């Protein structure tokens, strides 16, 4: 007899998605990660728009990863027009993307994922018994948002980071205040690791995963020009289409990516697994102590890896501010450059994984063609693979099975709003 099990609407995730599992006796017949978030056709909307306003538009693909989209977009434009940035700009952007990671991971690790493991429907109910955890989460999140506001102008959909630099450099006073806040929330970041190290990774979610993440260069981070794959390969960002073959399915406004005809994963687990040797300080110590929790065969490790990244983000944020302050800040204005008919591609690590923007421009600098590939679209096929694995392991009754599947999907920190905007323009 065939049974159809569903999660109609995933909660505590960004955007609208659901799950469908079809079982015939003990056999898994079909699984679907449904994305029913409406399409917004960004790549189509931005055609003919002048490059200068493109980041203001494409950052609105997503609220939680607005800075990642903005930096991916700005980078693609700068690659197209060969823009040279100052060291100050590079440092401020590095700080901005670390700030976004703090804000996003604090929300996900503490307020969206943690209630699963402590047995509450949400962080508000959880606060009755775990006020400390919730207050730590809010303090961390506020610090991440403070970085965003200081550098970008406000906490969602800012405007100050531009093609060629920052419209207005932050003041030394403002950065010193951010540093003080970062120092205050260091224990809150470490508490996240403390909490998640206590949750065992369930065997029912184990399977092989191909992992992909940015090559961060010398230090662990979220900016770079090359992509690492768990088999040991390294690709330049311009080869992204090979890494993200896309297909369209009726049940999903998100196209699904495959690599070598198989699914792959992006996000904190791939980043930490592939570049843990680039971690420093407390983050490196905590990695060494708990490296068994960074399990490439278990995607639920992603929660622990995000917690570890929170520790890194706070420490790295302080370091970057120290460098900026010792160099002294200047209102440098924006870099000068000339527009021409061209194409530019750029990759960044959004909090939930690799994000690509690819634009073509006409000779006046207006956009003629765009392609944007978001992390959740890349993860969609791997999520379906994991649903199949969990369903095939027959854990518990139907309700428990579906709950386990929901917890697994949440661990990917899916951003379903983002996932529907991967669109190719002719």
């Amino acid at each position: 007899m065939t049974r159809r099990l569903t999660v109609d609407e995933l909660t505590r995730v960004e955007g609208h998605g659901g799950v469908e599992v079809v079982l015939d006796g003990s056999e898994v017949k079909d699984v679907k990660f449904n994305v029913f978030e409406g399409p917004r056709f960004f790549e189509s909307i931005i055609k003919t728009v002048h490059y200068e306003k493109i980041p203001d538009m494409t950052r609105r693909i997503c609220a939680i990863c607005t800075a990642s989209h903005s930096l991916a977009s700005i980078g693609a434009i700068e690659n197209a027009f060969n823009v040279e940035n100052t060291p100050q700009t590079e440092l401020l952007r590095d700080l901005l993307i670390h700030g976004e990671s703090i804000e996003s991971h604090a929300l996900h690790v503490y307020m969206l994922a943690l209630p699963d493991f402590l047995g509450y429907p949400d962080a508000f109910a959880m606060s009755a018994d775990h006020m400390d955890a919730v207050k730590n989460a809010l303090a961390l999140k506020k610090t991440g948002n403070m970085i965003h506001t200081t550098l970008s102008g406000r906490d969602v959909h800012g405007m100050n980071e531009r093609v060629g630099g920052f419209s207005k450099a932050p003041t030394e006073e403002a950065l010193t205040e951010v540093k003080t806040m970062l120092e205050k929330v260091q224990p809150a970041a470490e508490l996240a690791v403390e909490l998640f190290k206590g949750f065992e990774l369930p065997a029912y979610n184990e399977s092989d995963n191909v992992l992909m993440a940015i090559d961060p260069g010398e230090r662990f981070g979220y900016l770079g020009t090359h992509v690492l794959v768990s088999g040991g390969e390294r690709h330049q960002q311009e080869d992204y289409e090979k890494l993200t073959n896309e297909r369209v399915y009726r049940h999903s406004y998100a196209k699904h990516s495959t690599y070598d005809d198989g699914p792959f994963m992006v996000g904190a687990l791939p980043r930490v697994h592939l570049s843990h040797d680039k971690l420093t300080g407390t983050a490196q110590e905590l990695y060494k102590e708990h490296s068994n929790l960074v399990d490439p065969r278990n995607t639920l490790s992603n929660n622990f890896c995000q917690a570890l990244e929170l520790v890194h983000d706070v420490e790295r944020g302080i370091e970057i501010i120290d460098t900026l302050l010792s160099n002294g800040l200047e209102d440098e204005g924006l870099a000068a450059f000339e527009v021409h008919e061209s194409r530019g591609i750029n990759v960044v690590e959004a909090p939930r994984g690799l994000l690509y923007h690819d634009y073509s421009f006409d000779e006046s600098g207006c956009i003629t063609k765009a392609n944007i590939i978001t992390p959740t679209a890349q993860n969609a096929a791997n999520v379906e693979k994991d649903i199949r694995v969990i369903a095939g392991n027959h854990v518990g009754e139907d309700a428990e099975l579906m709950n386990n599947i929901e917890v697994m999907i949440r661990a990917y920190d899916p951003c379903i709003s983002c996932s529907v905007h991967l669109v190719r323009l002719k």
Partner: protein
Amino acid sequence: MKPRIGIFSLTGCAGDQLQILNMEDALLDLVSHIHIVDFQEGSSHKEEGPVDIAFVEGSVSTETDLKHLKEIRERSKILIAFGNCAVEGGIQAMRNDEDSIDERLKEVYGVEPGFFDARLSKPLSEYVDVDLDIPGCPVEKEETIRAITSLLHGDTPLRFTYPVCVECKLNEYPCVIVESGKPCLGPVIRAGCDARCPGLGLDCIGCRGPVDSASGFAAEYSMLLEKGYSKEFILNRLRVFSGEVKEDFLGGDQR
């Protein structure tokens, strides 16, 4: 009895409900004064039954959105269009005049008409009665808190009925149109952001949508033409957050 609040979302980036989660200092206090019956992004807890105040973010962009919106209207006393997508149709409505939904599905997903249940993005007011607008992309946290506080006290929240220029002048920021010839939309966009962009030396991109009397759009259009911007450039600016700004409107007085 605490008022029953629902935070619902249609098609958008979920940035307006994120702004509620971003009220770090006030969040727990706020939550203690209300009873949340639905908040998909923040909670797994859901209740049926009547809603006193419904915050609805996102635009109507699928058949599913439309059905969801009608159900929310049915069960809610006060329905608030929350954020630019809900108030104006959002950034995804800016090309409604240019392409049909079938053309876009073909172009973007390479699929035939009817493959998905997509429709042209429209604001909530196109389909249901809306009791209050809270504009912005995203909404301002302070404005949202003030609105909730007013409603909890049985008052009507204040609306900004003047343009961004007023706030820019009060801050004594240099005018980016006059000083640097930037295509600022401050003269025609609803205030309430404290002229944040001009404060950073940037031109207003209009994320709070048109001020109530949008009769200035024609004047803005001719002013930018005089500054040397092309018609296509100006339309691409004006339409991003202002729904369907019709071309003939630019020559007339009324929106």
